[in-house]
Every structure is written in C-alpha cells, then in structure tokens.
C-alpha cells in the first residue's frame, strides 16, 4: 500500500518501521510483502525529484576539492540514490572480513560466511543476473582475455564485475509494495528524531514531519534506519532526548571512520600484440547482464605487501586532455554541460580548460568523424535508449596506450567524519558537515598495488605499465573522494567502544534499533557497496523475522 504523509491523519504504528526507501530499505521490506508482520516504510521524498525535498540533504564540506557537497551524489526520493547509481555490482572478498593486522581498525565481527547466503538474493534484487563473479562461472564457454598471456603473481584477471540495468529500486519494486497488505509505504515522511523510552534503552517513537507542516509520530516494536551512510549518523546524532551525545554515540563513534573509495586513473599501459590480444570492454552473459574482467589484487598479495584491497581496469586516456586525439572522448568533453554533476565530475581537470584545449577537442571530433559518429550511435542505442544500459564509456585509445582506472580500499580513520553543525534545514533538523580525510596508508595501497601490477605485466610480457610514484597521490585525489559511497559512519563492531552496531546490525545499547546500509561497514574493501548493502539488508530482514517478539 502507498500513502502520503501529507494526508495521514493521526499517528501511525506498526511491528517494524523502516526509515528510508532506497536500496537498503526497499530490500528489507521486500522480505515482508506477504509475511505476518505489519511494516511501515517511511520515505522522505515523493515518487519523483522535488527540489525542496532534495534541499534537506544540503550541508557543509570541509574541503570541496576532496568531497562533493552532501546535496550531491545522493537522492532524497522513493528509490533513493538508485535513481542515479551506475549499477556496478560485486561482492566483498573473503579477505575483507578477515582479521588483517596490517590494516587499522577492528574490522568485521562477522565472516564472509555470514553474508554469502544472502548474496544470490541480493544479486536478483539488483537485477545483476546470476551470482557468478568469475569468468569461468559466468562464461562456461569461455570469456575473452583482458590481456592475452597475462599471468599475475599479485593480480588475478579472473574476477568480474556485473552490472545492474541500473535498476531504480523505486520504479522496479513499486508494484510489489503497492499491492502488499503488510507493507505501507508512506511518502513525504521525513523522520526528524528518534525518541527513546524511559531508560533510554529502546526507541519508543519516531517524530515525522512533512514540508507542508504536518507532524505526527510513529510507534513500532522494531526500527530500521536505512537512510544512507550520511543521513543515518545525522539522525542518530540529532536524537538527544535521553542521550546527550546522540543515540549510539556514548563512545563518540557515530559519524567517525567515514570512508568512500580512493579512485582515479594513473600511468600508461602499453599493450603488446595486436587489437585481438586484449579486451577491456564488456561481454554479455547468457542472462543478459554486462560483465567485465578487471585486475584484482590477490588476498595473499595484500597480506604480503601489507596493503588494502584494490582493483583496476584498462581505461581510455584522461578525457580533458585533447592529446588523446580520440573524437569520441572529445565529443563527451564537449557535451559536458549536458551531463549531470555526478557523471561529469571526471570531465573536470585540475584547472579550467584553456581555449586551446577546447579547440583541440573540436579538432579531434572533426578529424575523427566516423569513429565519433559510431560511438555516439552506439551510446544512443545501447545506453540512452536501452532498457539494460551499456554500463560505461568504453573507447579504445587511438594510440594504443591505456591508463589504469583504479578503485581502492580506503582505510578506517576516526578523523574522517560526519558531524552536525548549528545550521538547520527547513524542518529544523541540524545539517551535517562532512570532513572526509584520507591517509598515507590509502595512497600507499594504490602505489604498491600499481607497482605489483607493473611487475606482473612485465613478467607476463604482455604489457608495460609505467607511472611516476610521485604522482600517485595527485592521481588518487584528482576527483576527490569517490562519490556516492558513504561507508563506516555507524560501523559494526563487537563492542560499543569500537563501533555503533553489533553483528546483527543492532545499535549497541538500544534493543529495538537497527541500521541497514553501508554505514555499518567497518571496512570499505574494493567493491562498490550496494550489492553488500542489499545482502546485509536481506540478512537483517531474516533476523527480524526470527525475532521472538513477533
């Protein structure tokens, strides 16, 4: 059932109240569509974008070069940020859950075996096809090699990333929710405070407000916060009726250890052999899903080198520099004003482009009309108009020289944090300030991993990677923190001194409050977060179903 908070009369109650209808919240309620429990799904936004609602996400950043303003890279509407996500899916690796003495922080209090049973369901919900993340499993008939002859001591080229459509969870699962008698989705319902019971050990009610001035409360036996990794700490910190520092924050853990990913492009990869000997693009599996190989730093190598997790892909040259002489890339550069903030970020260079550079892009397009037209047609047919979209821009460099596009683990760092500031939003809720920090450990992971890949390529004789180690930090920070991955702000840990939620995602010290989403991840791994967010959400739903209270 779908209702609108602006028309709700009186207070609401339910067995379970889930706050936030993005990937996590929707994945939770999908498990209750035909169950015994009565579930409320409170969603701040409506079914489409609304500027006034989105503005409630506004906040400050310590350094805009390092991190995008919090109003960007997320979406406050039904479906949440899945309306704009890229759809890249992959599970966390076993090593992410292992104890790693060489990495800071306590790590995960659960093992991969606790999450693995829920990944296939997560894959289905994300519409990423089979849970098959190796070339052999996804393409039993064989998959094209990334680099023919590559055999890495440090890196494997056998693991895959798979792509969702990308599925907008709101649009995709609306009908299921609308017809359910057990789940009520309440739109335009902003939860602005959690109120705890007498001894502060449980959430008694939730304060809800609409932008039209209505206010009511919700009572539920169990509450799940699924508002994304920036909004979960915001609500916990803003709920101070019986917890002076905010709920779950007795040990100053809420909002700390904020991680994104360290990503960018670096170096030059000169590939031996002819064009048939390497393939950096996608291949479609029988289930219709786009899959792609990448180089993944093996677990043993991470341990031996004492670094975090790391993956990298062969990539076209940096777009803003017209020296690539590739019409398709220059056409993208020229189309920058038409591309959204989130997807045009990489088109910004360190400095504004000179007139000469713009002229260079125009020249590239004019001198390369056939390939440019072919690229644009492909883009139109396979991406703009397609129901399952060709995932990213894939262009073979004219000069045969690739760069490395890397996605690297960021380590837990208490100084990197999300906190409240005095400024308030239109509903009177304190806004956030994001002070994202990286460490030299993060940069070392990128540099050491790139050196290891260079060695692997040299030993295999199939390519040559060159890069200047001095430039790694600049490359890693050129676009700032990887956008849209908001990790670690209510991390899972065995004790309240080390984290915010326990192994069941329940807030330490609050017996009926749970968190779903990447806020609970104690480490960021190499993987984009959403598949694991959804897997943990399904796991949480199973925990709630077994709850003896019901």
């Amino acid at each position, binding site marked *: 059932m779908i209702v609108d908070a602006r028309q709700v009369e009186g207070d609401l109650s339910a067995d379970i109240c889930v706050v936030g209808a993005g990937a996590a919240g929707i994945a939770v309620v999908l498990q209750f569509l035909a169950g015994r429990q009565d579930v409320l799904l409170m969603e701040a936004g409506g079914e489409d974008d609304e500027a006034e609602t989105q503005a409630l996400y506004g906040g400050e950043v310590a350094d805009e070069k390092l991190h995008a303003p919090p109003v960007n890279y997320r979406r406050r509407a039904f479906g949440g940020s899945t309306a704009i996500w890229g759809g890249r899916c992959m599970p966390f690796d076993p090593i992410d859950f292992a104890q790693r003495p060489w990495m800071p922080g306590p790590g995960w209090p659960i093992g991969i075996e606790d999450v693995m049973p829920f990944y296939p369901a997560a894959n289905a919900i994300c*519409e990423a096809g089979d849970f098959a993340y190796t070339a052999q499993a996804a393409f039993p008939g064989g998959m094209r090699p990334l680099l023919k002859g590559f055999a890495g001591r440090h890196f494997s080229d056998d693991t895959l990333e798979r792509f969702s459509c990308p599925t907008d969870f709101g649009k995709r*699962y609306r009908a299921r929710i609308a*017809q359910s008698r057990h789940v009520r989705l309440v739109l335009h319902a902003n939860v602005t405070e959690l109120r705890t019971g007498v001894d502060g050990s449980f959430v008694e009610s939730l304060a809800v407000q609409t932008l039209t001035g209505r206010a009511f409360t919700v009572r539920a036996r169990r509450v799940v916060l699924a508002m994304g990794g920036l909004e979960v700490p915001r609500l916990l910190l803003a709920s101070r009726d019986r917890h002076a520092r905010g709920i779950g924050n007795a040990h100053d853990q809420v909002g700390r250890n904020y991680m994104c990913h360290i990503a960018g492009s670096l170096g030059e990869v000169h590939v031996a052999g002819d064009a048939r000997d390497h393939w950096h693009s996608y291949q479609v599996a*029988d*289930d*219709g899903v786009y899959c792609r190989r990448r180089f993944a730093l093996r677990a043993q190598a991470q341990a031996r080198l004492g670094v975090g997790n790391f993956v990298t892909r062969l990539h076209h040259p940096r777009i803003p520099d017209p020296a690539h002489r590739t019409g398709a890339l220059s056409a993208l550069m020229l189309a920058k004003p038409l591309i959204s903030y989130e997807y045009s970020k990489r088109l910004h260079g360190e400095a504004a482009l000179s007139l000469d550079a713009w002229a260079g892009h125009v020249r590239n397009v004019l001198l390369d009309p056939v390939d440019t037209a072919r690229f644009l047609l492909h883009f139109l047919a396979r991406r703009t108009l397609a129901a*399952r979209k060709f995932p990213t821009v894939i262009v073979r460099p004219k000069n045969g020289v690739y760069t490395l596009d890397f996605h690297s683990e960021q380590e837990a760092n208490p100084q990197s944090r999300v906190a409240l500031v005095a400024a308030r939003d239109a509903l009177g809720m304190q806004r956030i300030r994001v002070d994202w920090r990286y460490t030299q450990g993060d940069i070392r992971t990128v540099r050491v991993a790139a050196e290891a890949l260079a060695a692997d390529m040299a030993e295999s004789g199939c390519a040559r990677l060159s890069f200047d180690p001095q430039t790694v930090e600049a490359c890693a920070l050129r676009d700032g923190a990887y956008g849209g991955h908001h990790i670690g702000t209510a991390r899972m840990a065995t004790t309240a001194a080390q984290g915010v939620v326990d192994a069941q995602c329940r807030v330490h010290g609050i017996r009926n409050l749970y968190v779903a989403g990447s806020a609970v991840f104690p480490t960021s791994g190499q993987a984009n977060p959403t598949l694991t967010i959804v897997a943990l959400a399904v796991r949480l739903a199973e925990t709630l179903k077994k709850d003896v209270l019901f």
Partner: protein
Amino acid sequence: MTAAGGQVLVLGGDGFVGSAIVAALARSGEFQPVRGIRRARAGAVPFRLCDATDPGSVRRALDGVRYVVNAVFGGDATLRAATRAVCDAQAGLERVVHLSTMSVYGEVSGLVDERAVLAVDAGGYAGSKVACEAIVQTYVAGGGAAVILRPGVVMGAGGQQWAGRLCRLLRARRLGDLGEAGDGFCNLIDARDVGAATVAALRAPEAVGSAINLGTPGPPRWNEVLVRLGRAIGAVPVPRIGRRRLAMEARLAVPLHVGKLVATRCGLAVGTLPEPIPPALLRLFAQQIRLDAGRASAVLAFERTSVDVTLADCARWFLESTPK
C-alpha cells in the same frame, strides 16, 4: 473415495489440456477415458464423436458414461454451449469436472483463494469462463455433483498457447527479461498435474460442489520463467525488454491480428507476419496475483511436477519441434 471408477468422457479430449487429462485417466487404472471429440482421430484411447455445442450430440455421447470432464476450448459461444450441454443433459452423471481458469478472478492482485469474488463484469475469455462457472453452479444447486478446477498457466510439452508461444517470442527476442512489466507471478501448472488433479477431483468426495485453484505454491515470477526458458532454448543473451518496446508491441497487437485475418482470407502466407502479443498477455505478465494452492494440496493431494522439470520439458519439446 467414490466406489470403483468407470468410463469418463473427456470433452475436448484431443486438446492440449484434454490430452493430458486423458493420459492421466488412462494411467490411473481406475478410470477408463473416452475422448469426446468432433473429428475422428486415431489413438490408443477410444473416442466418441461428439459436437460439444450440440445438446443432442452430447447426450448421445454420455450414454453409459458415469463421469464427464469438460475440457472444451474455444470461443464464447462454444464454451457456454458445451457447459450447458453437459449440465442440462440429465444423464444421471456421478460427477462432472469442469475445467475453468484463473482468469475468472480478473485483474486482482495478492494471494487469491477460491472464495474470492469472480470478475463478473469481465469481457472476453474471462467473461465466458465466469458465465460457464455460473452454469455449473446452477447445476450443483440443482443437486448435480461437479468440481470446478481453476488452473493458472498450463504448461508442458506440446502446449502451443504457452510453451510454444513464449518460446517463439523469446527466440525472436521480442520477449525476455521484462523488468517491472514482468514482475507478476506466473501461476504455472504442469499439464500432467492438471491431469492428476482431475483424476483426484473425480475421486475425492470433499471436492464436490466447490472450486479448486491449480497453481504452484510459491510461484515464480514471469521474468524468471521467461529468462529460464530463453536460456534453455538458447535464445541468449536473454534481452531486457523495456517499457517503450512493450508499449509498441501492445499497440501493434491489433493491426497484426487484423493483418493475420486478412492474410488468411486472401490465402496469403500468415507465417510471414509477426505474431501479435496481446495487451491482455502483457497485463498478465505484470499481475501480482498468486493463486492460493492450499485447497488443491489439501483436497486433491496430487503429486506436483517441479517448475524445473516443466520448463525443461517445454524447452526440449520446442527445440525438437521448432527448427530455427
């Protein structure tokens, strides 16, 4: 249990569902099926020629028969006439099993059991089947013994309406993973299970006078069925079909249908025209209806074929019977 079985006349016994029922009866050892068919067709099971829409013809075919299964398939007039012919025959029948359909529930969603109100205002096939059920209910009210079976999507090797059509459209890449448009439940039932359920309906005393849904408990969603069938027949990669494409298909359905009729009239090759995808079929793919299979399990207690086996059989049959 009723006393010994006996002869069972299966009207529409040469159709896809009818043949599955005839086969199940023959296997039962208890009942002797007789095919009630319009045109003579050889086969191991005996037949009686009978025009199901003609009351006299039906009455003659019922001579000496204790049970009737009405599995007639056709247009509105045919369906109604055949049902009336059976119910009005006054042949002292021990039991009638009437094959209805889940379509009688109309475009509802949620878990639907047999007490749900029927879509009395429905037009088309659903409307005809609702009217037929009313005839059977009148028969029951007058003291007749009848069981109404409401199967969902009857699939199996040889089934052109579902297995054949879906596989053809998958091969043509006109169906595939439909996203939210294919998120409805596929209340699939194997044709052999419809046969087994019919045998059970002839036996079980508590079935009499009621309607029973025939579907799979925990049915798959249409997307899952389509993707699995597509993969099984090698129509890979199975494409994602977007809303725009499906809307276009819905708009083309009527012109294609008319085109087919015209082409047939003019003696032209119909095969060259693409098969229409009726809007009703597209609506079914999205319909969030789950048939409650509880009563069938409790009262008829027949052994079910797994969805895996059904889909594998459909694919195998399609590959053998329909060369590329």
